């Protein structure tokens, strides 16, 4: 422990006193005309800027911050970010000349913070390495490069058919209780050892749900590279509104800076960040509440006209930077909750059109036991294909089409039973491939194991296995390979593609495993 001496106290005091600023500055001051519903209307502040941080001096000199939103002819409409109860009419407000900033840095890893970056997990203060503005211009075309690195979620159905690249914006959409958050959490857990920093932004959720989530991540050792930004349902609408932007700002710090905290460049690579916004429908609702109380004119579904702009400027911040700019990335996984599968509602259509693809989760599949309940027919990834590992491309290339034709045939065969051999075979294969895509929670699979699982299905090794045994077969096969043929997995991991040699060794290994597995139930 460091010894505290009179000299060290003296030095500390001197340093603090030197930091004192005794200059008197001229400031612009306004007066609160009206306050209520988390909104304040201010007289004066003619030079206030849209989105500027305002400082309210409330009862007993208490400082509360607000955001300037409506700049009108005679007054300014602002939303309050802190304790609204201390603000009264006639209180003074002044402009600060800056916008809301959040602290960021490695000190935030493993912590749970509110949208202002203040810790709420009781683990003490956070030492910030820097501050980032919550609203920040997205990089332009020249500063970017196309998505070219995979962001593995560890989920077979997604990594094979809806691959996500680092820097992509992939929407997770579905009704309530269809496993949207589960996908996000699995994706975070799978980032262990992948040099990825994860930011999970919880918007409008129950505080207990967030606490459970933190516990789950801690249990799986994922909190050490994760930051949780929490704006729960009990937080004010403005806090829920800025939460995703605060999450993006915290993430941007890592992307724009290298490991050493210095700006990223060709010699100092930026970090890779995964940002999950769970969920943007609740952010839109909070923004609607704010806008209506600010008396902005309502539009479709009573949302304000600029709700598209709100989401597009947030998601445009997802980026894969060019190598000259450090090559860092910010992958965005926004979540949208639909009502009774209605994707044509305002917010879902907006976010679908902004993102580079969507993972669509369906209630029916969920209750049929197909989990994750991804509807591969309408889920797409528009840019992830170019970032997919070659081995996966080789085996999963036709998987989506095969499954689509299986679904079509399956619907057809419900009306009759006389089927030719080829159709029966296609149905049997389809059923096994569908079963193969089932996966439990918190058990992400490395990409080479995913590729092998699909390889086994695609090359007919599962055709003689009972449908009920497919997932067991997959698990035991991978265990067997890990134990007895680790070389195949290692070669596939390094080569990243199926070579003739790997294929022949793999075929032999699977055949060998199947002979031992067959006794538990083989189709005659």
């Amino acid at each position, binding site marked *: 422990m460091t010894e505290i001496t009179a000299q060290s106290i003296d030095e500390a005091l001197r340093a603090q006193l030197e930091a004192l600023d005794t200059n008197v500055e*001229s400031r612009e001051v306004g007066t609160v005309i009206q306050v209520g519903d988390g909104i304040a209307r201010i007289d004066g502040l003619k030079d206030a800027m849209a989105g500027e941080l305002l400082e309210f001096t409330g009862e007993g*000199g208490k400082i509360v911050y607000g955001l300037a939103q409506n700049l009108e002819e005679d007054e300014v409409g602002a939303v309050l970010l802190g304790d609204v109860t201390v603000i009264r009419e006639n209180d003074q407000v002044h402009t600060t000349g800056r916008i809301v900033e959040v602290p960021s840095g490695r000190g935030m890893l493993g912590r749970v913070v509110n949208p202002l970056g203040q810790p709420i997990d009781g683990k003490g203060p956070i030492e910030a390495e820097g501050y980032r503005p919550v609203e920040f211009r997205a990089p332009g075309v020249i500063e970017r490069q196309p998505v070219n690195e995979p962001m593995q979620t560890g989920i077979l159905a997604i990594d094979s058919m809806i691959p996500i690249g680092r820097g992509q914006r992939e929407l997770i959409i579905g009704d309530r209780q269809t496993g949207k958050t589960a996908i996000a959490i699995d994706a975070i857990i799978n980032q262990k050892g992948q040099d990825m920093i994860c930011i999970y932004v919880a918007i409008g959720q129950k505080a207990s749900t967030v606490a459970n989530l933190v516990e789950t991540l801690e249990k799986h050792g994922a909190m050490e590279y994760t930051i949780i930004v929490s704006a729960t349902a009990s937080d004010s609408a403005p806090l829920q509104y800025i939460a995703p932007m605060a999450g993006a700002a915290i993430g941007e710090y890592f992307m724009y800076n290298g490991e050493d905290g210095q700006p990223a460049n060709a010699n100092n690579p930026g970090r890779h960040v995964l940002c999950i916004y769970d969920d943007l429908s609740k952010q839109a609702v909070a923004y609607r509440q704010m806008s209506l109380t600010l008396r902005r004119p309502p539009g479709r579904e009573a949302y304000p006209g600029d709700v598209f702009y709100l989401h597009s400027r947030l998601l445009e911040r997802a980026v894969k930077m060019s190598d000259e700019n450090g090559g860092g990335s910010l992958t965005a996984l926004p979540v949208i909750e639909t009502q009774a599968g209605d994707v044509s509602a305002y917010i879902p259509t907006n976010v679908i059109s902004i993102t580079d693809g969507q993972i669509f989760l369906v209630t029916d599949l969920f209750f049929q036991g197909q989990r994750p309940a991804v509807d591969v027919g309408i889920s797409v990834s528009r840019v992830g294909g170019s970032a997919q590992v070659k081995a996966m491309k080789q085996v999963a290339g036709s998987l989506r089409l095969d499954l689509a034709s299986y679904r079509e045939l399956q619907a057809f065969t419900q009306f009759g039973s006389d089927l030719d051999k080829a159709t029966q075979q296609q149905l049997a294969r389809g059923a096994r491939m569908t079963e193969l895509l089932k996966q439990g929670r918190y058990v992400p699979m490395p990409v080479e194991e995913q590729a092998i699982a699909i390889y086994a299905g695609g090359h007919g090794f599962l055709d003689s296995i009972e449908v009920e045994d497919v997932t067991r077969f997959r698990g035991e096969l991978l265990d067997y390979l890990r134990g007895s043929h680790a070389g195949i997995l290692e070669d596939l991991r390094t080569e990243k593609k199926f070579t003739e040699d790997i294929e022949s060794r793999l075929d032999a290994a699977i055949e060998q495993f199947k002979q031992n597995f067959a006794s538990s139930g083989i189709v005659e």
Partner: protein
Amino acid sequence: MPANRYHAKAEVDIYAKTLLEQLNAKGGIDAVMEARSQMEQIVAYNRSHIELNRAASDATMAPEKRASLVKGVFSNTSEELSSVLGVMAQRGGLDILPRVLAAYNDLIKNQLGVTVVDVVTRVPLDDHLRDLIKNKAKNELGGDVVLREQIDTNMLGGIIMSAGSRRIDASMNTMLEGVRTTLKKTS
């Protein structure tokens, strides 16, 4: 208040101009400044007490009755101000009073060439300090400067000056608050 904002602005300007011209003709700059203070107090009071505003714009009450009610309430203000307030109540309410005050302030500056500087101190200003502040403000803001002095016993010392929406806070309270924040921040 008229729905058309240009009409509303014209109405506000008429109230402000009428009041200023009448008061200036009657009592000069002192009367003008007195009415300004009274209007500020009324605006501040109305913001935190909505009842009078409601009564003054109550459509179920006859316009004449609204006017007499408002005149009665503000009978201790100058005759010109209470008349203007009465007309406002008769024509719809006191909602536009803050805008009238803003227009009135603009007229004081543009028409009379006077800048009003509010000065808040712990102890009364002496002549030397008064001249010093006046000269400084005149150099910075131009035109004639009228100081409006206020004593605030909650202040520890120093001075707070404001002109329009600009404010210079050199009070001891704020300085000490700055010290407190700095000492809290530096580790």
